[in-house]
């Protein structure tokens, strides 16, 4: 059985039910990407997988045990989460921010160790922000800031990392830079689950793709096996053609030019 599994989840906020009977299995060692239209429940699912949201029904299992029954800090040593909108404290330096990722390893009598020091240095090195260690995070570019946040999750040294839209608000070059970095982290042996908005990026990087709509999983599998024009139409309501990416051979979604149809209709 895979390490992170969700069964029969009913996820809800107070009145609003977001998903019912949702089952998800995150394949160990995969780079799983979740796609779907805004508001379909991607973040909600990620929060449930990270033990942040208590399902109304069903359960999330981590290493075979219900995740809610496990102490928060012990879960935090195995599952890391980069939320969609984390808060950067004003005036904090890069090294201090990354160091906060070590919280799950600290106890009253074991505050800061060489092990923490090593993990923070390794995390900054891995995302290439070592040179920025003493800079104030607010003053960095968007791409640098996102790498710093990734370093925080890396410093947590979890085998499973959940990333909620790690590339949103970045320009295209920085999006690719962050995704290449994620891909490397995956190749080093971690299990990654990321929510992405760009379908082409999802197809290019995912080893396992989950397409959601309205709180349900419409399809999942290898991108080249499941991504079809019909699926994209069903999930996003977008007519398109799928071609092979000349660079990677993965599916490339080309939206249909509806302006032609519109103009034709008007004639």
């Amino acid at each position, binding site marked *: 059985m895979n390490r992170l599994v969700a069964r029969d989840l009913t996820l809800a906020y107070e009145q609003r039910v977001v998903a019912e009977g949702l089952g998800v299995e995150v394949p160990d060692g995969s780079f799983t990407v979740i796609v779907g239209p805004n508001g379909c429940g991607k973040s909600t699912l990620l929060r449930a997988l990270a033990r942040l949201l208590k399902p109304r029904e069903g359960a999330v299992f981590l290493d075979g045990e219900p995740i809610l029954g496990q102490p928060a800090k012990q879960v935090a040593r195995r599952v890391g*989460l980069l939320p969609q909108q984390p808060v950067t*404290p004003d005036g904090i330096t890069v090294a201090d921010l990354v160091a906060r990722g070590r*919280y799950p390893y600290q106890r009253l009598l074991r505050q800061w160790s060489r092990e923490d020091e090593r993990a923070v240095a390794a995390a900054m090195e891995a995302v290439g922000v070592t040179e920025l260690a003493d800079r104030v995070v607010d003053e960095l570019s968007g791409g640098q800031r996102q790498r710093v946040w990734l370093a925080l999750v890396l410093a947590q040294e979890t085998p499973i990392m959940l990333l909620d839209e790690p590339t949103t608000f970045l320009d295209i070059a920085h999006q690719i830079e962050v995704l290449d970095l994620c891909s490397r982290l995956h190749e080093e042996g971690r299990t990654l689950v990321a929510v992405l908005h760009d379908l082409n990026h999802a197809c290019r990087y995912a080893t396992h793709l989950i397409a959601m709509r309205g709180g349900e999983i419409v399809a999942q599998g290898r991108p080249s096996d499941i991504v079809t024009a019909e699926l994209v139409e069903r999930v996003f309501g977008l007519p398109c053609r799928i071609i092979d990416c000349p660079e990677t051979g993965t599916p490339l979604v080309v939206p249909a030019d509806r302006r032609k149809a519109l103009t034709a209709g008007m004639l």
Partner: protein
Amino acid sequence: MSTPVREAPVRKEPVRAAAALGRAGGLLILAGALVAAMAASLAIGAENIPLGRVVDGLLHPDGSREALIVQDLRVPRTLLGVVVGASLGLAGALMQALTRNPLAEPGLLGVNGGAAFAVVLVIAFLDTRTSLVYVWAAFAGAAGAAVLVYAVGSYGRAGATPGRLVLAGAALNAVFSALTAGVMLLDPRTFDGFRFWQVGSLASRDLEVVAQLGPFMLAGAVLGLLLARPLNALALGEDAGRALGVSPARTRALGALAIVVLCGSATAAAGPIWFLGLAVPFMVRSLVGPDQRWVLPYSLLLAPVLLLAADIAGRVVARPGELETGIVTAFVGAPVFIWMVRRGKAPKQ
């Protein structure tokens, strides 16, 4: 964890280490400043006493006039200034961290309003003039108000979010001031008695007050300082903090408890002293940045230095009378605070 992580050499990080060293040095300097302020508070007053004689008076209480002044008046007053200042500084820092609001003030939890109402009730309806009764009434009022604020603020399913707590505190504070004013209007003598409590003063309280409230303040301080790391994690946002293993509800409840104990005992001991709990953590963050492991102890040490300085100033400017401490803190603190805000150096939480 056996996650393969690319091995990176453990770098010497001279700048970070230097920053930590600098901050630790700053703490030592502050501790020195506190000792100096205590010495000045023992020596300066309506009648100045040279430090040598202060020490003599402490070591060999010979019944001389100066020894008596030091022992009976200035020692209690100075110790009270230290514990009250430290409590208010730390409570303010905790409040701003918990609410993630750089302008939050411990009084927002309803503590001051509740304490004032309890004191006014005691003055109006109990025929007592012993300060210890006031003290315990104020403490009970502060705690009762905080519990009420917490209950109102966490009513409903969303629970006790910082914003709701502050709203509930503001509302209940207004209710308490109205009730307090009402009782005073009914009885002019109460008004007279209450006036002195209300301005906030370190004078004319005896050592017994410090002895009784000290253990509470100590417990509150230890609890507060232990919250530094969970508060640091929560500062990254509710979700990020929880993903790191923090329980926001527990951290908030413990933080509120520490604030109520600290601020409640400070208010009980010296009356409401506004401003210190608001301005000190604000100043501290512009000095040491957002790391609560530094912000909390710095606030704990800086606030009593300022409070003692204000108390001494109050004794000097109006000789042979004196200005109440609470008035001086506001008069001196406000311009400094406004200057800092305008300079834009003060960081948001």
